[in-house]
């Protein structure tokens, strides 16, 4: 069973409500965790009330919507007037040659670009209809979590890594017994549990590259985000680890919206529901994966896919 | 390949300094002195004058390592003359000759805010032995605060001199809880900044600073009273040589003890000698 087929299964209506429910049932035993409240407050009506824009997928309700978004470093635009919309439970791949603004766009979605002193953006980014600039940054980022290109486990134990966000975000530091089930669950979802369960106290830096990246995924999903951003998560990994992670993405998309930046066209084709092609900061084309790869509308997309440039 | 130029700039500086260094005339003898910091200002004046008198045929190097260092150095033979602010003690190496060169005397001082004019022997002893702790117990003081006793580290020459006539000659009588300063100036600063304090300074330091000089048993600490022998607590500065002074050292010491020029310098802050008898340690 290919990742693609698994993905199709995962999307076939039946599974999703169950998955959704499961994520709500695991109420965090942590008081005062804003995250829990946010999860509960998401109302489908609100999302449905927004109008459809170009590039909306047929399935799922709209979660994230970009209207005319441009991102600048100083006066130089890195992303130009991008509008698109991302629906619940889909995997959207951003492809394009180096320096086309994919990563910048991704980092804008959870406001990580704010860490760059001279970065700014215009246009609107709405998460379930709320302008993300109006949301508290820490809340936003725990709802829209991120996995980076280079695995970046913290210099601490595996357990502490996965429990990190849960532990550090709440105002009261949860105890280990409270965290344990959540950490184990996250490790299971990230497919790492079997490999490390004997020794969660081991330093995360001792893991292999592929394991480290899965640990980072476990860390990112431990706090039950709604959207997962992945910035070329496999580019630093060998093919075997890449395959494992691609499988994992398929599994995760059951109850997560995933936006993934990738350099690897075949990877995008394997795992994505929809693909957006960016070039020099412009969103050239967005569409269903098969359509982009088999019948691209734009000349540039066709040439990029054919390997004329890139 | 160009070398890092920055590192070689210092070399140039050395060369420049070497050139600027005073080129000594030929046939010069150098006398090395080291020792008492208290005597240092006087020795600097005397040596400078002597160099001029001798038309720069004698040159001096005067260090200020402290009395004991000077004595050790002269005993080891690493300097020609040691400077000491106190007479020889039993801890000094044998075979040293102490030549007195000038006298100084010690004043008891208080802060100007506590203008006591006179203290008796009994009062000074009571204060420095901590038998009284409050100024209200001291007649002549309008304060009613705790007394701060400012003393010196144990073998300061000035402390020895102070104790000789105020404390039955025993420095050990000073209350151990007193503040023990390692220099006259630190003590002077402390008395200057603290209205409740009492201390003692060599007159050279006491007169130049704005402190209250206390008379002792009705006798004020003045040069006149020292000259007429009514004021106690007078002591000598010494030049120390290994064995009897010889050669250039002898002529220098002789010049200090007898010449008018030296006497003139001594009178700017100290007292000329009454006796030039050497003491051997």
């Amino acid at each position, binding site marked *: 069973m290919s990742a693609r087929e698994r993905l199709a299964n995962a999307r076939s209506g039946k599974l999703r409500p169950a998955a959704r429910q499961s994520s709500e049932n695991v109420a965090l035993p942590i008081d005062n965790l804003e995250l829990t409240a946010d999860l509960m407050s998401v109302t489908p009506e609100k999302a449905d009330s927004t109008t459809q824009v170009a590039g909306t997928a047929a399935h799922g309700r709209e979660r994230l919507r970009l209207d005319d978004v441009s991102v600048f470093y100083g*006066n130089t635009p890195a992303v130009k007037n991008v509008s698109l919309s991302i629906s619940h439970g889909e995997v959207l791949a951003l492809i394009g040659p180096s320096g086309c603004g994919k990563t910048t766009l991704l980092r804008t979605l959870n406001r990580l670009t704010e860490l760059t002193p001279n970065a700014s953006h215009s246009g609107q980014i709405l998460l379930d209809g709320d302008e993300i600039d109006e949301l508290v940054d820490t809340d936003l980022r725990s709802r829209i979590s991120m996995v980076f290109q280079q695995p970046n486990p913290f210099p601490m134990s595996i357990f502490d890594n996965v429990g990190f966000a849960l532990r550090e975000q709440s105002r009261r530091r949860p105890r280990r017994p409270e965290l344990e089930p959540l950490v184990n669950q996250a490790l299971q979802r990230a497919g790492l549990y079997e490999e490390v369960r004997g020794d969660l106290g081991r330093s995360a830096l001792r893991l292999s590259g592929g394991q480290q990246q899965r640990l980072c995924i476990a860390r990112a999903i431990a706090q039950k985000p709604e959207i997962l951003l992945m910035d070329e998560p496999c580019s630093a990994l060998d093919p075997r680890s890449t395959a494992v992670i691609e499988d994992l993405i398929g599994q995760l998309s059951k109850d997560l919206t995933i936006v993934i930046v990738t350099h690897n066209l075949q990877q995008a084709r394997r795992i994505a529901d929809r693909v957006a092609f960016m070039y020099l900061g412009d969103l050239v084309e*967005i569409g269903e994966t098969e359509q982009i790869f088999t019948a691209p509308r734009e000349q540039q997309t066709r040439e990029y896919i054919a390997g004329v440039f890139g | 390949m160009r070398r890092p130029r920055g*590192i070689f700039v210092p070399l140039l500086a050395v060369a420049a300094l070497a050139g600027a260094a005073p080129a000594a005339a*030929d046939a010069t003898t150098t006398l090395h002195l080291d020792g008492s910091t208290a005597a240092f200002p006087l020795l600097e004046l005397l040596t400078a004058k002597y160099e001029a008198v001798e038309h720069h045929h004698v040159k001096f190097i005067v260090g200020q390592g402290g009395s004991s260092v000077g004595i050790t150095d002269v005993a080891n033979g690493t300097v020609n003359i040691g400077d000491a602010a106190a007479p020889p003690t039993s801890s000094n190496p044998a075979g040293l000759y102490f030549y007195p060169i000038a006298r100084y005397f010690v004043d008891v001082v208080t802060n100007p805010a506590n203008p006591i004019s006179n203290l008796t022997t009994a009062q000074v002893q009571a204060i420095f032995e901590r038998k009284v702790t409050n100024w209200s117990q001291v007649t002549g003081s309008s304060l009613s605060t705790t007394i701060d006793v400012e003393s010196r580290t144990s073998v300061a020459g000035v402390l020895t001199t102070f104790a000789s006539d105020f404390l039955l000659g025993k420095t050990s009588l000073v209350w151990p809880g007193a503040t023990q300063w390692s220099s*006259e100036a630190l003590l002077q600063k402390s008395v200057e900044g603290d209205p409740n304090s009492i201390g003692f300074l060599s007159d050279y330091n006491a007169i130049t600073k704005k402190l209250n000089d206390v008379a002792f048993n009705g006798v004020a600490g003045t040069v006149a009273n020292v000259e007429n022998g009514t004021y106690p607590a007078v002591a000598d500065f010494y030049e120390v040589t290994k064995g009897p002074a010889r050669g250039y050292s002898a002529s220098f010491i002789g010049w200090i003890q007898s010449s008018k020029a030296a006497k003139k310098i001594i009178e700017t802050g100290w007292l000329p000698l009454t006796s030039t008898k050497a003491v051997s340690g």
Partner: protein
Amino acid sequence: MASAEPYSAPSLLPPRRRRRGRRSSLRSWRLRDQAVFVLAWTVGIGLFAVVAALVGFFAVRGAQYLRPDLLVTHPAPSVSQAGSGGFLDAIEGTVLLGVIGLLIAAPIGVTTAVWVVEYGRPRWLSRIVESTVEMIAGTPDIVLAIFGLALFELGVFAPLSYSEPGGAFGRSFLTAGAMMSLVALPSVYVATRNGLVATPRQLREASYALGKTRIATIRRVVLPGIRRDIATGSTLGLGRIIGDTAIVILVLGATLRIDTQSSTPLLGLLRGTGSTLTSYIYGNSPAGEGGAPQKASAAAALLLLIIIGLNWGVGRIGRIGGPPLHEPKRRLGA
């Protein structure tokens, strides 16, 4: 439909007012975090205040008492402050001692760093050498001074100062400089080592590929590439030499003037004694016999000025010449 606008308006400009996204409020933080946050800002401002007070204090004193003629006048023995001259000799002594200390410390520091980083075999020995530098860095200067005095009074070292039949005087620019080199050495070593570690491997490999030996590569390629690090470390070391008091008083003799030892121009000076700005300040402040507190304040202002200048220099060194070989990582604590 699926196509976005492929070619946007020709002149796309950033928003005029940068939007600041909503941040988590301080109140939502843990109590401890709130405290740390407040502390961080307080300390940041507090440090400014301390420096401002210190510089201000000595600037006022300097403006009151620092006169240009003090810089070019020899100190003179005098009972009165007015007659005590300037501190030319102290300035010369500071410069001379700094230069001697650095001339000893820089080659040894650089050599040691090169050996530890580039060779470092056997490993235990290089560990010992490294920890030795750490120990030197932590040794109190008063202990160094006492050691210097005990060492250089040995007859063997007589040529460094001068000797009488009983032994060596032990106090001279050379002996004090030797002790001062220990004060500066850790700075030079650390800066050089950091530079060496940061030098990219490709650079060395390129040189090996041209048939150069390892030592030739180090001398002709690596060391020139990190000369800025060496210069920075040396300047920091110089700052530490200039600021030291204990060694000057015990091992340089702290004589009022520079006293040359013989008529031989350079050697006589190096074997002679003298003072530096720090010992001048110490000697004329209450801690010494306090001859001339106003002159001490003036010298203190000058010393602070020199230290500020050196720091400014350290900042500049990194920017001289072309682009650096490795990412210019400006370390504070070299």
